């Protein structure tokens, strides 16, 4: 009785029909984890005991006929989202032994919906990276080709979903950290509108860009998870007070005649032939679905990476100041306070985190603020306006997620700039705060998944998910799985 490739919705049905119990389901997943995890290494922490206890509770509730949206369903959580009593490391030595005393709001909501947590997944340290190679502990391997990266920073979550090591997962996306690994691992990943999902309990990287979102096997599953985690939260002032629509109900909405915009700036230098062809083919599918495809322009997109690599490190330099060895986390002994600070932060953070803290500190320094942070904020406004203009003409903007399929482990670690370019198509969405959905649209010659990105205006998740769903059904790629 296989269940590793079931969608959340299918599992929900099977649990309700008593085809299998939640405890069986959890046990099956842990059996698979024992078998496959040593090759993939998606998890930093496994919470088998807790998961089994939660499953037992879920079975009782199922027997009592309770009807919760995720009752008894096992999920994986990116290890920068706090679960009370479970080590939350951010894949950093700094927080290697940190156990939060509180739940993230999304965790509360998932728990209230009956979900079960199998464990915490690997990531680039503090979510800074595009390959999960910046994890202080170990790299995660792409289930489609173990020599390749799963993308990042939510590489652990994407790999876990792709390898059948969980039924669905949460990740976080600051510049593409959900969408790019989803693309590399052939799964669905959504970066919701900034303010759609509470950030409370998500360890901050860049507060004005971070957003939690689902990684799943199908678009419908993403809709289901978003349904549960979205909505206002009085613990996060940036979480918008706006009602959550019924995303699942909207999946089959009529989109005929809707307009899809393709930014001409997205098809220039750096985009691999294979990805370009995959996107072209996807546009054909869109036309077949009854949508109109037209070219649009996002004139400021060439400046997105530059602006992002000022704003995100600037915020990070401040957000990560709290890791000083005083209150919690790693502390190195020093001969005095300053020495303790220096040693703690030198030893506790990895090279990419330090690089970004230094970039950010520099960008905010007196005399440089106007030239860097302020200018970057202005560029951000222009990028937001570009999208607003485009969305006057079209309902969606389509493009690639990443310039190429998954690259090899170690291939880009020597050159941070080249690594940063992995996010060239995803970063603008974070800067503008809009919706970005990544879903599989093709496989490369080498059998690597290629993702398509569907972007929509603020709070357009309903439509974006509907288009994704209809595209996905037309293609049927979700039925393919890595041979692990």
């Amino acid at each position, binding site marked *: 009785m296989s269940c590793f490739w079931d969608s959340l919705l299918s599992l929900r049905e099977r649990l309700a029909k008593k085809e299998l119990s939640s405890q069986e389901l959890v046990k099956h997943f842990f059996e698979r984890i024992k078998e496959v995890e040593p090759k993939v290494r998606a998890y930093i922490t496994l919470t088998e005991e807790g998961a089994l206890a939660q499953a037992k509770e879920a079975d009782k509730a199922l027997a009592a006929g309770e009807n919760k949206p995720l009752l008894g369903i096992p999920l994986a959580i990116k290890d920068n989202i706090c679960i009370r009593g479970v080590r939350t490391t951010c894949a950093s030595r700094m927080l290697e032994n940190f156990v939060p005393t509180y739940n993230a709001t999304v965790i509360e909501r998932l728990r209230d919906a009956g979900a079960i947590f199998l464990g915490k997944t690997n990531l680039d340290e503090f979510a800074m990276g595009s390959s999960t190679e910046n994890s202080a502990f170990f790299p995660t391997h792409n289930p489609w080709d173990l020599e390749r990266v799963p993308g990042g920073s939510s590489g652990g979550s994407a790999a876990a979903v792709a390898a059948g090591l969980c039924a669905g997962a949460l990740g976080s996306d600051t510049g593409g950290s959900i969408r790019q690994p989803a693309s590399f691992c052939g799964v669905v990943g959504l970066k919701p509108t900034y303010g759609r999902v509470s950030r409370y309990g998500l360890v901050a990287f860049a507060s004005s860009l971070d957003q939690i979102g689902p990684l799943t096997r199908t678009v419908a599953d993403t809709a289901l998870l978003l349904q549960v985690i979205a909505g206002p939260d009085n613990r996060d*002032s940036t979480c918008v007070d706006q009602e959550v629509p019924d995303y699942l109900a909207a999946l089959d909405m009529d989109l005929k005649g809707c307009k899809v915009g393709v930014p001409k700036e997205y098809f220039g230098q750096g985009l691999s032939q294979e990805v370009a062809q995959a996107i072209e083919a996807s546009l054909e599918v869109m036309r077949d679905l009854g949508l109109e495809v037209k070219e649009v322009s996002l004139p400021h997109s060439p400046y997105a990476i530059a602006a992002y690599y000022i704003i995100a490190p600037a915020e990070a330099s401040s957000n990560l100041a709290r890791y000083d060895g*005083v209150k919690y986390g790693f502390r190195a002994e020093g001969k005095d306070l300053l020495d303790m600070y220096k040693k703690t932060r030198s030893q506790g953070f990895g090279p990419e985190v330090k690089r970004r803290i230094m970039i950010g500190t520099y960008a905010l320094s007196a005399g440089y603020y106007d030239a860097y942070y302020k200018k970057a904020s202005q560029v951000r406004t222009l990028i937001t306006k570009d999208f607003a203009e485009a969305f006057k003409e079209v309902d969606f903007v389509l493009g690639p997620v990443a310039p190429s399929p998954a690259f090899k482990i170690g291939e880009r670690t020597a050159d941070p700039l080249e690594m940063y370019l992995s996010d060239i198509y995803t970063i603008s969405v974070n800067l503008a705060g809009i919706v970005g959905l990544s879903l599989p649209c093709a496989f490369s010659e080498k059998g690597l998944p290629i993702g398509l990105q569907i972007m929509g205006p603020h709070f357009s998740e309903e439509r974006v998910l509907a288009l994704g769903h209809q595209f996905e059904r037309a293609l049927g790629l979700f039925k393919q799985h890595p041979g692990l």
Partner: protein
Amino acid sequence: MQFEAVIGLEVHAQLTTASKIFCSCSTAFGAAPNTHVCEVCMAAPGTLPVLNKKVVDYAIKLALATNATIHPVAVFARKNYFYPDLPKGYQISQYDLPIATGGYIQIEVGSQTKRIRLVRIHMEEDAGKLIHDEHRPVSFVDFNRTGVPLLEIVSEPDIRSPEEAVAYLKKLRAILRYLEICDGNMEEGSLRCDANISIRPLGSKELGTKVELKNMNSFKHVQRALEYEIRRQTALYLDGKEIIQETRLFDVEKGVTVSMRGKEEAHDYRYFPDPDLVPLKVDDQWVEDIRQTLPELPDVKKERFMKEYGLPAYDAEIIISSRHLAEFFEACVKIFPKPKIVSNWIMTEVLRELNREGKEIHETKLTPELFTELLKLLEDNVISSTAAKKVFSEVYKTGKRPAQIVEEQGLRQESDEETLRAICQKLVKEHPKEVEKYRSGKKGVIGFFVGQVMRETKGKANPKVVNKLLTELLESE
């Protein structure tokens, strides 16, 4: 060569909201270390600040009370620096878009009213406290104070002397207390003051190099530190030496200021808008709602007291310095409608006791009823003014009725002319030599007789009546 000082003050007022500015922890003072803390104020990973709207209410109150301009959009900014008492590694404060700018505070300089203009009022969070072990080289951090709301009030450099600085602080404290948003206790640190001070030759329009002074936790310290600094800078100037831009600490023991850090060691705080907090929108309705709650403010009250009760400016300024004292005064005048007598007693006997105990009038046993009963006894000559002072301190201590104290201690004054005349006649008879002296022109001898009467009556004789009777007796025949 004459010099003048150019002084600007930066005051931090700790607000009396029940909970902290960005979490729901209590702000109560004096709890065991690290008991009023939570994951938010301890800066646990992933936690976020949520603004306590009450803090904005309080900021609006002060802005209205000082005629400052309230901005429709205010932004919180992060002030970044490392220190163990600052758990996030940054303080949430306000930078280029504070809640209010401009406005002024009025002070009395001699008989003139002077306006000290304000630069800005902004909201921010307090830091924690370091506690250093006396025996071992270790320090502890108490995060109870972390996140307690503060208003920072920055004045223009309009202050010209230490006296003006103290007057400004006192008036600001009175306003904060009238608004009931800060208890104004400098010793406990709920009102803190830093000063920027420079000197220049009198008449010059240029500004000298300014020095920042810290660690002045009483009005007296502010006065002494500024006086010292003026002397120090003047001496340097006259010696042709350079005044260095720096931060100096006031040494209370020695009464001097000492260098803490120079300009080049100054922090770069890397301010930027806090992305965890949305820009604060303050609409007209909010401001109007707060305006409705404002009490009569010190300056308005002072004007009214001068007009309505005929008090001199000096008296009025002192009485209105505390809202409770002003209320006490008015309650007294309602019962005993002689304002000047009431204010004289308040400014001397009452304030002496209050200052001695560091209390406010409503925290004592003295009520307007008891106080005016005492004034009435004095007014009606039932007791002498000496006895009244005695009765007052007893009333203040015990809360007993003055009439009861007068009876118990036999302080009633003898004013009956018949009784006193008999005593006087007897004494005049017994001291012919002194009578002779008086009549030969040594009028001062009357004092001798008054003293004798007082001795006979054990001090209870009404001295006015005694004087009158003795003069009659000695002048006659």
